[in-house]
């Protein structure tokens, strides 16, 4: 498979076309905005957190196929997880996307999100894939400033 095919796999194209949990959430008790100043992509992540568990999660915004698919896959993966598990997943996804040489096992710890592993071959696109993750991280921490990829 070429690097390009690896980047734009069927699953990613499908999540881009029909993003899951792509909606605002009226009863969200955590919410954050994420912004990539490089390209103008922005995303809002809504979380309903109950006893430290992500009961519901959704997103809205505009961006490229990679950022949209990454956000969609993220919401599907995080629903039902507790905050600690979400944080651990965030760290492993980040390592996988950046091709962090200190942990080449990260890719085995992210479950279905492995589908995004092709991104590390495209350094200019890492921020597209990580935007939603930075944003959910900010939402869970209750930060008031918009998250950025910078």
């Amino acid at each position, binding site marked *: 498979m070429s690097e*390009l095919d690896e980047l*734009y796999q069927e699953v990613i*194209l499908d999540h881009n076309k029909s993003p899951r949990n792509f909606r605002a959430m009226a009863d969200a008790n955590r919410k954050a905005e994420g912004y990539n100043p490089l390209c*103008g*992509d922005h995303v809002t992540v809504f979380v309903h957190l109950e006893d430290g568990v992500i009961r519901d999660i959704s997103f809205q915004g505009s*961006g*490229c*196929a990679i950022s949209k698919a990454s956000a969609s896959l993220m919401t599907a993966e995080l629903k039902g997880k507790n905050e600690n598990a979400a944080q651990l997943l965030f760290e492993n996804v980040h390592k996988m996307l950046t091709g962090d040489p200190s942990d080449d096992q990260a890719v085995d710890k992210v479950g279905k999100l492995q589908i995004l592993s092709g991104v590390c071959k495209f350094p200019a696109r890492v921020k597209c894939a990580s935007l939603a993750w930075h944003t959910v991280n900010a939402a869970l921490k209750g930060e008031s400033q918009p998250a950025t990829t910078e």
Partner: protein
Amino acid sequence: MLMKAVPQTSDRVVGQSSFDVARVRADFPILLTKVHGKPLVYFDNGATSQKPRAVIDALNHYYSTENSNIHRGVHYLSEQATAAYEAARSKIRNFINARADREIIFVRGTTEAINLVAQCYGRSFLKAGDEIIVSAMEHHSNIVPWQMLCEQVGAKLRVIPINHDGEIVMEEYRRLLNGKTKFVSVTHVSNALGTIVPVKEIVTLAHERGVPVLLDGAQAVPHLKVDVQQLGCDFYAFSGHKMFAPTGVGVLYGRAELLEKMPPYQGGGDMISLVTFEKTHYNVLPYKFEAGTPHISGGIGLGAAIDYLSALDWQQIAAHEHRLLDYATDALSSIDGLRIIGTAKQKAGVLSFVFDHVHAHDVGTILDREGVAVRAGHHCAMPVMQRFGVPATTRASFAFYNTIDEIDVLVRALESVLKVFG
């Protein structure tokens, strides 16, 4: 001038018969680069242009034989370096037809030139309630410095709207001009849309009210013959790196009469004539605005780029670039789901476009794999994106060393985008 209005038939004949694109391509070593195993197709000239061998050699020559600090040494090398740097200033004066060398201020680039005018002219001569006019298609560098000035002095920014083709609505400009207008700053050629703005008319209308005008020429100087006296503008700003010279050097042209009235931009060496702890006397123009050791090799490189450009036939270049734009406009218009953003009657070689269902970033990545370098994003002109209701565009921007064959490569690469995204 590069105008779509020029009759196509005569244009095509000139473009095909007399411009030897293969010969100029040989002057640009980087054009031989392979990208992902494919020949580089460089369509990101609006971001920065490539450099001819003559410019690269000038930098090498300067550092190998002349390197020294300027305006201060009594030794041989300093005299050589000073002469080379000041010779570059004269070449620039001649290139844009300014009246005198002292009207040519070396800066880091267009951005610094605009900030200099906003701070040195703006803070001295604008006050609360005054108005500054810009257009809706400015680069952020011709918006933010004026917003900063507005915050400092309490002035107000007014914006001339653009129509759906990406042209300035002149009636609105006439309406915005009033007794409170104290400055007008507009682009000569839009970086995001390619529109050539009728700047002479804009200057004339402002001058009828005694209002000074700055023109952002960053995207104009690589494509159009610029004559600041003919345009009548008070300030003209441009960057070296978009006109085949090194990065980090640019030019502010200012009418001497206004520059004389303005305080210095930064304090330091070279901009003074006498310093005591009681009082400092500033140097004469242009040095008053050139504190610190400048980008000497950059200035010399800009001079070399002007020498290179001066040896080319600008009428042929204009015809060739116009032909590229026409050919690309026709070819891209026939691609399913592709919409061109910026359809002004008078355009320079910039083609911005969007797909209905594919984001510009994805387009940019797929084109890169075919060797085609384009810009994807908001082009530092977010208000333009908002005006057209798109988050980002893909932009192909041409230079005279581009070819019709390269546009065919772009078209094939765009077809592969549609293959990936179905």
